[in-house]
């Protein structure tokens, strides 16, 4: 389940930062559904065209849980740009999500 994987070309003066995100959820639980909606909304608003988001259902890939050190869910892992960050929760606190992703909201 991969959304919007196109890479934005160098068309701005600032170097384009590409965000690589993975969202781990558990089926269609309340938290999971909210998290998916919230993440998509935040990405579309602040990272339009410069992110890749993979949504993974841990129930379907249980071995991933150990490999990725998953405890709390939903979990959003930002592997790029560095430093890697892990965000847990339903992503309803937009301010914290942005802080976690390293996006300044001044603009």
């Amino acid at each position, binding site marked *: 389940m991969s959304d919007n994987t196109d890479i934005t070309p160098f068309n701005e003066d600032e170097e384009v930062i590409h965000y690589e995100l993975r969202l*781990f959820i*558990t089926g269609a*639980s309340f*938290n999971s559904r*909210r*998290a998916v909606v*919230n993440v998509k909304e935040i990405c579309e608003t602040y990272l339009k065209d410069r992110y890749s988001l993979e949504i993974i259902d*841990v*129930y379907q890939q*249980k*071995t991933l*849980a*150990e490999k990725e*050190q*998953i*405890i*709390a*869910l*939903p*979990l*959003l892992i930002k592997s790029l740009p560095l430093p*890697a*960050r*892990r*965000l*847990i*929760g*339903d*992503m*309803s*606190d937009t301010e*914290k*999500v942005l*802080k*976690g992703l390293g996006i300044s909201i001044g603009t």
Partner: protein
Amino acid sequence: MKTTSSDSITGLPALQKARTGIKGLDEITLGGFPQGRPTLICGSAGCGKTLFSIEFLVHGALQFGEPGVFVAFEEKSEELTINVASLGFDLNQMQKDKLIKLDHVHIERSEIEETGEYDLDGLFIRLGHAIDSIGAKRVVLDTIESLFSGLNNEAIIRAELRRLFEWLKDRNVTTIITGERGEGLLTRQGLEEYVSDCVILLDHRVANKISTRLLRIVKYRGSVHGTNEYPFLIDEDGISVLPVTSLTLSHDASSKRISSGIPALNKMLGGEGFFEGSSILVSGTAGTGKTSIAGSFANETCLNGDRCIYFAFEESPKQIVRNMRSIGIDLQSHIDNNLLKFHASRPTLNGLEMHLLSINKMITQFKPKTVIVDPITNLITVGSVSEVKSVLIRLIDFLQAEGTTVLFTALSLNDNISEQTDESVSSLVDAWLLVRDIEMNGERNRGLYVMKSRGMKHSNQVREFVISDNGLDLVDVFLGPEGVLTGSAREAQQLLEQTGVVLRDHAVSRKDREIERKKMVLEAKIESLKEEFASLQEELNKTFIEEELKKEVFEKNRHELSQIRDGKKRD
């Protein structure tokens, strides 16, 4: 073997238990931890929680056919593997054999941002997957409280933990949860609130710079259990909890005798020595030969082909062997023949309970016929009198249950018998020998008494205890008009007696000769009287014959005269 019911007599469904396989723990819990339920092991840092849990899993997997999952929140799997390798557990191999599954849960607070509602489904999934992958029956969550430090939302964690424990119960896995001891609480986060079936508290107490590990079952729902604090030992064989209690006095009493190794002492003890399986106390002041008595007893045991353990708290084995050689006792050969085992340690090495445990452990392994503890007095340096007494009571009980004869030596500081406490064990032991200094005429000698010897005739006399090149011996003391004489005074007295004998012998023979002489004189007298009598008789006879002759002659004359008269007339 998988489970044992705690109460099968009533026939009611009893709590199923999962055996831990930890030495002694199954005895105190009467079968192990509650099967399919969570058990909380709490205690401060370094008290052995992780080791307890890992042993539970390893024994479960190897002995009882119950594979287990170990979820480590603190240590990495590799670290854990290395840490328990010293106990001979090969976790890597066991993982390959699908007997154990290690999972290290890593939570780094600084990497995590909380952005709203969440749950711990990730942990559930991981755990569920791990359980399913090896068919685990046992689960250990090693310090699950780390979650509290990794995550902020305590309300969520608490709710999720409650759900987790319910979920584990539903999956019917026997779970151990470890928790750090908190202030005023059993665990820092009050985990005991969630785990209400069985709570075990581990403690690591240091008193007088000596540490003792203790275990206590705080609660165990649905089962009877021992309520005491039980000391436990962590050594190269892992954990051993030894429930050394003195609850019963039901051990067998043997009427067989065992020689003390000193023939004269045996003679004082009804001619045969101590009872087998009895406890003997040898007390005395410094340098009275207590260790020599102990060594001689050990020697005798080994000469009879039996085993003996010598717990030395004062001297090194080499020292004892050398010293005993000086009195003609060769202990080295017994050591070489594996009959005699020395265990020398300073009392301060361990706490008292630890000493008791290690003594018990060695005795269980070596199975000796006699045990020597030399001296018990030194144990006082690591505990109070009452503690020492309690330990000794349990040691004696344990040994008597095993039928092992034990000889303690005790140093008494004062020479006053009536004030003798000897760590108050004198009332516990079956036989009590007292070795005393007897100081007289500028020399010290040793006197030995049998203060008591239960169930046998014994001498009430004091004997002089002599240590010579040929071993130990007891000599009758001399009771003279000046009192008890020992040592050179006794020898002098003996000499004096010998002189008296010679003199008396001399006197007797003189009298004999006099009698002889008198007899000869009298006999001579008798002889002369006899002669006199004979001559008298002869005299008497002579006159008698003369008379006869005279009478005859007279008769004849008269006849002749009458004839003449008649004839003259006829002629």
